[in-house]
């Protein structure tokens, strides 16, 4: 591969919003709240499963300062999904703005808009509700039992695309695929493995909870400023639920205080929108931390059975995975998350026989949703734990086993074509793959060679080393679309308008770099505006690791079109043909050295002098493949054998994301994802009482890590060049979170000889497992 040199791309320029954010400038939704905004507040269900027999809002409505009370009796009953995905959505239509039935503790019962938060809270207390309590369904096993209570018995619940949907059996989604014959391969295998794993429910914990602000503008249109990853889906779904035309809704996304998938959900926009629509007053709603835990979205827990088979030489011949996902009370992302458990994990290792089933079940627990990793996190824990166990059974170093089997550049997997998102997938062969190098560099950084057998370890504190390999994707092929528009200003700067949604990742900066590189200027000359459904072109939004790869190519194309126009104007000025010119450093030079013009000269000429026109372009991009980023993760842990207390001593993440457009931001994506994954693996978990109520809905007892808890972290970016990506880039945002669960499980085994097949790995669990050992 020829060494490529870039001027703007692959440089860590200053993130364009870093200083304004560090100065505390008003950039977030809550910072725009006008003084006369009404406060909205929800009344939540105290029961996991109940029918609202009667509800009396009259006292609340009469309270001074109360302007609007919404409940199922006074809003349109429109079945929809809150999942912000492509249209038609692969998630079932099983949700209403308000319903007569409540399906988990924290489900919507009613909502109030009032002059102050205190009045709103008092009004909620004045709403009288009588419930008929139903038996709750609180686990995957109960949901699937014959005769179990049916959670979605409403007649409107349906899938709007042709996929299996059996709400009468509490099944929200089903998917599967077979290549070859796994049963036969396992029957004839020299080595076999058959294990079940369970990976738990957790929350994204953006530091900014869900927040939205709505008003009706002077032209009678509904304007919603909201912290969303999906402004265009938010517009579409809000219009749908309010039963008003899409053109009557404008969604503006300011800065977002973290998302991680939880803001890929249209969770509160419908209610603030409806309240503003009815009261004609600005309406503001911000979740409390408790509400963010209970009444937003979570990671789907999954029970996963993995079966492996290998021939006498230790070559994998059968790879089988059966996943049952718990989608909670509503089917948001139910199908696609469990699909991705297969499609983002199974292609990693070559096997002639592959089997996969995915089932998502309804329960009366908090609702699953999109969460960074999106099914791959769950399956990577199961498969990468199983592969480690299997290597030991065969008697081969788990690193070598992975090296022998992982997919390589030029190869394909039948899984790509078989598993899509709600439809068949898209066949693709792997372009760039730097996984070998990731494994080698990671192994060196952790000291893999010094890794000893747990049986030889002595003393109270024992250390162990574990590893795993990972892949993800870059966008959803043949589904996702991102568009960008660029226009030139008088001083040679450019406005870059995109629907792509920077949720803190720095995508605005990355896309500005791509535009600057394409045009031949610097990224500080690119003025980015994202996203506003009135102003910016369409984009599906920030999810599925798509923005850099998908929108990046749209920006690149728009940049090249603009550059062509610049050259045509410069050709007029320099009296040359465009082919005799070249662009460098925001100037156009005649290749023969006879003259040059600046971008400013070009812009002024194009706008004021002769043959005027607006130098501008708009480009759309759809992805035809989803090139996986790859990673190898390693960790060293230390376990106190007397208490089970575990400490991650060192964590190494080596990642191939193609060209890192902005290396520091790419590292930041890996580091943030890894840290989130580490505390997910070790401490984060929902505790429920027997009635299905979460009992630890606060950072006091739902522990996410602070700087004090940070282990030594080594982040290695392994450059490759993905030909289909903008300047060789692939995605990087999700993959990192998939590593810590399997890596730490494998390291625990290497330290003390116990296999934990259920997350999180609390000291108690480790200690108990050691006692039974």
């Amino acid at each position: 591969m020829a060494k490529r040199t870039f001027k703007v791309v692959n440089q860590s320029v200053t993130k364009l919003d870093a200083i304004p954010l560090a100065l505390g400038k008003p950039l977030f939704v809550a910072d725009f709240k006008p003084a006369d905004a009404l406060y909205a507040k929800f009344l939540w269900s105290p029961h996991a499963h109940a029918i609202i027999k009667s509800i009396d809002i009259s006292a609340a409505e009469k309270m001074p300062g109360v302007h609007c009370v919404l409940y199922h009796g006074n809003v349109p009953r429109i079945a929809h999904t809150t999942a912000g995905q492509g249209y038609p959505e692969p998630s079932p239509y099983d949700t209403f703005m308000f319903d007569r039935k409540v399906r988990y503790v924290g489900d919507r019962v009613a909502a109030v808009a009032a002059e102050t938060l205190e009045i709103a809270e008092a009004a909620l207390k004045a709403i009288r509700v009588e419930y008929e309590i139903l038996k709750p369904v609180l686990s995957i096993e109960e949901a699937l039992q014959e005769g179990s209570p049916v959670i979605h018995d409403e007649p409107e619940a349906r899938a709007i695309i042709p996929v299996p949907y059996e709400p009468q059996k509490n099944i929200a989604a089903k998917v599967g695929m077979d290549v070859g014959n796994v049963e036969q391969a396992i029957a004839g295998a020299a080595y076999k493995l058959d294990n079940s794993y369970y990976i738990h429910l957790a929350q994204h914990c953006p530091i900014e909870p869900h927040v939205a602000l709505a008003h009706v503008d002077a032209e009678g249109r509904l304007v919603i400023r909201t912290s969303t990853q999906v402004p265009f889906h938010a517009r579409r779904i809000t219009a749908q639920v309010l039963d008003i035309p899409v053109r009557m809704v404008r969604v503006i996304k300011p800065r977002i205080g973290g998302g991680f998938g939880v803001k890929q959900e249209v969770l509160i926009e419908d209610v603030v929108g409806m309240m503003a629509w009815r009261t004609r007053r600005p309406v503001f709603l911000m979740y409390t931390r408790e509400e963010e835990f209970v009444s937003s979205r979570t990671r789907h827990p999954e029970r996963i059975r993995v079966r492996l088979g290998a021939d006498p030489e230790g070559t994998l011949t059968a790879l089988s995975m059966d996943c049952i996902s718990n989608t909670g009370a509503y089917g948001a992302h139910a199908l696609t998350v469990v699909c991705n458990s297969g499609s983002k994990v199974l292609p990693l290792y070559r096997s002639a026989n592959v089997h996969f089933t995915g089932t998502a079940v309804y329960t009366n627990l908090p609702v699953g949703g999109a969460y960074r990793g999106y099914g791959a996190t769950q399956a990577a824990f199961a498969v990468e734990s199983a592969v480690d166990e299997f290597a030991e059974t065969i008697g081969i170093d788990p690193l070598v086993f992975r090296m022998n089997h992982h997919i390589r550049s030029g190869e394909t997997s039948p899984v790509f074509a078989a598993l899509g998102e709600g439809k068949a997938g898209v066949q693709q062969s792997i372009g760039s793959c730097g996984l070998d190098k990731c494994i080698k560099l990671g192994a060196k950084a952790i000291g893999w060679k010094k890794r000893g057998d747990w049986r030889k370890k002595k003393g109270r504190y024992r250390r162990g080393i574990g590893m795993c390999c990972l892949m993800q994707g870059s966008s959803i092929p043949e589904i996702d679309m991102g568009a960008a528009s660029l226009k030139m200003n008088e001083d040679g700067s450019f406005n870059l308008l995109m629907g792509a949604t920077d949720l803190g990742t720095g995508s605005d900066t990355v896309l500005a770099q791509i535009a600057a590189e394409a045009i031949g200027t610097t990224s500080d000359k690119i003025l980015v505006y994202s996203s506003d459904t009135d102003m910016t072109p369409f984009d599906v939004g920030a999810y599925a690791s798509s923005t850099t790869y998908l929108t990046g190519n749209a920006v690149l194309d728009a940049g090249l079109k603009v550059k062509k126009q610049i050259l045509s104007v410069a050709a007029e000025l320099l009296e040359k043909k465009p082919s005799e010119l070249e662009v460098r450093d925001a100037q156009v030079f005649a290749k023969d050295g006879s003259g040059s013009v600046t971008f400013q000269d070009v812009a002024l000429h194009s706008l004021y002098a002769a043959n005027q026109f607006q130098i501008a372009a708009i480009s759309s991009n759809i992805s035809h493949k989803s090139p996986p980023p790859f990673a190898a993760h390693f960790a060293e842990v230390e376990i106190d054998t007397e208490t089970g207390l575990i400490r991650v001593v060192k964590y190494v993440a080596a990642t191939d994301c193609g060209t890192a457009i902005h290396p520091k931001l790419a590292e930041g994506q890996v580091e943030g994802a890894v840290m989130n994954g580490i505390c997910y693996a070790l401490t984060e978990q929902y505790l429920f009482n027997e009635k299905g109520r979460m009992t630890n809905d606060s950072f006091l007892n739902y522990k996410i890590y602070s700087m004090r808890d940070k282990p030594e972290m080594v982040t290695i970016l392994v450059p490759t060049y993905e030909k289909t990506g903008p300047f060789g880039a692939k995605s990087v945002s999700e993959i990192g979170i998939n590593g810590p669960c399997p890596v730490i499980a494998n390291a625990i085994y290497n330290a003390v000889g116990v296999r934990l097949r259920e997350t999180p790995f609390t000291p108690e669990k480790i200690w108990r497992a050691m006692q039974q050992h």
Partner: protein
Amino acid sequence: MSGTKTISFTLNGAKKEFAIAPGELLVKLLRRSGLTGTKEGCDEGTCGACTVIVDGRAVMSCIMPAFLVEGRRVETIEGVGDFGKVHPIQQALADAGAVQCGYCIPGLIMSAKALLEEKPDASDEDIRTHMDGNLCRCTGYEKIWTALRNVRDANQPKQA
């Protein structure tokens, strides 16, 4: 407002008077007064996004009743820096690539500033311990950690 009370304190160097409601929390007072740089993330003193400096100490303004700052010196992110006079901590965070979504950043800067002004030679352990109350979900802390140590190191007298 019934039961309002007037308090006065020094806010970012200027003497100010505010009418406050009974039980009003400092973060609410600041934000309704237009100082929206101080963020709300949990309203229960667990995330640190609302951190401000009161008489030189970092405090969480979401659990501090406003009346408690009567006669005291309160500093918010708006008093720390601005375009053209960016504070070294702000610059270091931007330079290190430590600002992702940025929601936790104002509070985190206030915590770091309180520490490094009181203890310019803070040890690594001091930094870790002091910053324990400021949660960030985006960065994994690695680049924040680098930035804060860079500021601390730049504070040290040059060795001959």
